[in-house]
């Protein structure tokens, strides 16, 4: 309990730093936000352009797909906001030996990594996600009841944890292969494609995004529970939570193992 308190206090100190830097670099923040807005906007524009040519995509309407798309942004944005420093571990900190500093402090290494940086650009994803979800609510295509409201938030948190687990796992590979940035990048980009209904893919592809790198459980599957009555919450959001916990545990174990065989630099 004492440690939890201490870590919370520490996080407050880091957060205070973050807000100070945010005020200092308003222009950068704004540009990052615009960048993310545009990226998402092109994704939506893509759907519009496609639906000019077709009425439905394998039983899904444009509105439903936009909801899935928006819903997918929220856990992604949350993870992006809080754990962005993991990217730097993958690309630079391990290979350059700068990871040394985490090893030297009497604090949990993983928490040091994620405390150190918050990524304000992520607000771009979060805002787009929230706008699209709210817009979908006003269109009346989203099912709303007490259970679904609770599960909505549960699903978002579990989704964010899955993102973090995937990032942590691939970033940890850098303890073995020195620079795992490109691998992480590729794995992370898979998430872009799990925004669409998984039925469109061949079986082995579906297998990969469902079980290997389980992004299907971050976006499409839980989102379907909120738009289709017949979807079972246990097999979507229940499994999502299970995956989140299991994958995070595995990723954390690999990370922990990695720190044990960390080689620093200069040899």
């Amino acid at each position, binding site marked *: 309990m004492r440690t939890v308190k201490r870590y919370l206090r520490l996080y407050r100190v880091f957060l205070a730093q973050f807000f100070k830097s945010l005020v200092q670099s308003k222009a950068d*923040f704004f*540009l*990052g936000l615009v960048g993310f807005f545009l*990226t998402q906007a092109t994704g939506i524009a893509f759907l519009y352009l496609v639906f000019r040519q077709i009425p439905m995509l394998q039983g899904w309407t444009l509105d439903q797909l936009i909801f899935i798309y928006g819903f997918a942004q929220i856990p992604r944005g949350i993870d992006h906001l809080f754990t962005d420093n993991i990217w730097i571990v993958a690309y630079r900190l391990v290979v350059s030996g700068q990871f040394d500093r985490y090893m030297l402090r009497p604090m949990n290494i993983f928490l040091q990594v994620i405390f150190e940086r918050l990524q304000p650009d992520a607000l771009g994803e979060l805002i787009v996600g929230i706008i699209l979800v709210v817009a979908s609510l006003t269109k009346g295509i989203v099912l709303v009841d007490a259970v679904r409201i609770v599960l909505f938030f549960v699903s978002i948190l579990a989704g964010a944890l899955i993102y973090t687990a995937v990032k942590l796992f691939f970033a940890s590979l850098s303890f073995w*292969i*020195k620079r795992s940035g490109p691998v992480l990048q590729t794995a992370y980009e898979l998430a872009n*494609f799990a925004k669409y209904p998984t039925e*469109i893919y061949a079986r082995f592809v579906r297998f990969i995004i469902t079980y290997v790198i389980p992004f299907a459980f971050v976006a499409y599957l839980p989102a379907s529970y909120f738009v289709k009555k017949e979807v079972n919450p246990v097999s979507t959001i229940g499994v999502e939570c299970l995956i989140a916990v299991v994958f995070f545990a595995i990723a954390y174990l690999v990370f922990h193992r990695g720190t044990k065989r960390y080689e620093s630099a200069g040899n």
Partner: protein
Amino acid sequence: MRKKIKIYLPFLENEFKSNLAYKGSFYLFMLCYLFSPFINYYLWMAIYGSTDSGSIGGLTRDEMVIYVFMIYVTTEMVFVGISEYIREHVVEGSVVMNLIKPMDYRMSLISQAAGTMVYRFFAPTVFVWIGVEIYKACVLGMGITPLSNILCYMLSLLMSFLIYVLFDFCFGMIAFITTYMYGMQLIKDALISFLSGQLIPISFFPEAVGRLFEFLPFSSMVYTPVMIYLGKYSGAELAFVLGRQAVWVVLLYVTGSLLWRRITRRLVVLGG
């Protein structure tokens, strides 16, 4: 000319080698990177499966398969960024060193980018390309792409590469204003992927919009070579799109030179 090549060749070679150096990640990278064209492929197949008409946006289902994978081949080799290097050089201050060296800064960056392009050609683009041809001939029964198309495509691809790096050089000049380029980088990537045909063929846009986009440099980066490969242009039209690419190469080259001259003059003044 030969002497010039001698100066810049090491840049190309070094970049090629350092790309190879991270062996562990290399195989994984190769495997993972192929996911994206495949998933795109399935998405389009679902889209074509949701309509009765055989052709959408001027492309048949089979052509779309080729389009998706050739987009991958093309963007892999064309989208080689140099603005990130410029940013690094500005941050480190080594950009000033490049002013005293007896060579053109932009040329050294382009040589470096060419090294990456060569590397990407071998790993793994060329295999995907061969795969596309085999699939095209054996599964789709469309026959192998005629040599003339391939040659025109290669010429167009080379110009696309130049357009992209020359554009990215101009873009990299932002580093002299602010070294935080992440946001700008995102904006650039989003616009390019949308306007170049990478995300969706230009022919899917409403006609007036598409016409407009074709006259921006972005469509010359990706859309033009891929459509050439598909054999969508011939005769005067082919000459026209290739000419348009050449014009963009020249225009961006001149723009880059002007920007660079202005900025270095300012640097010299500031440096005293």
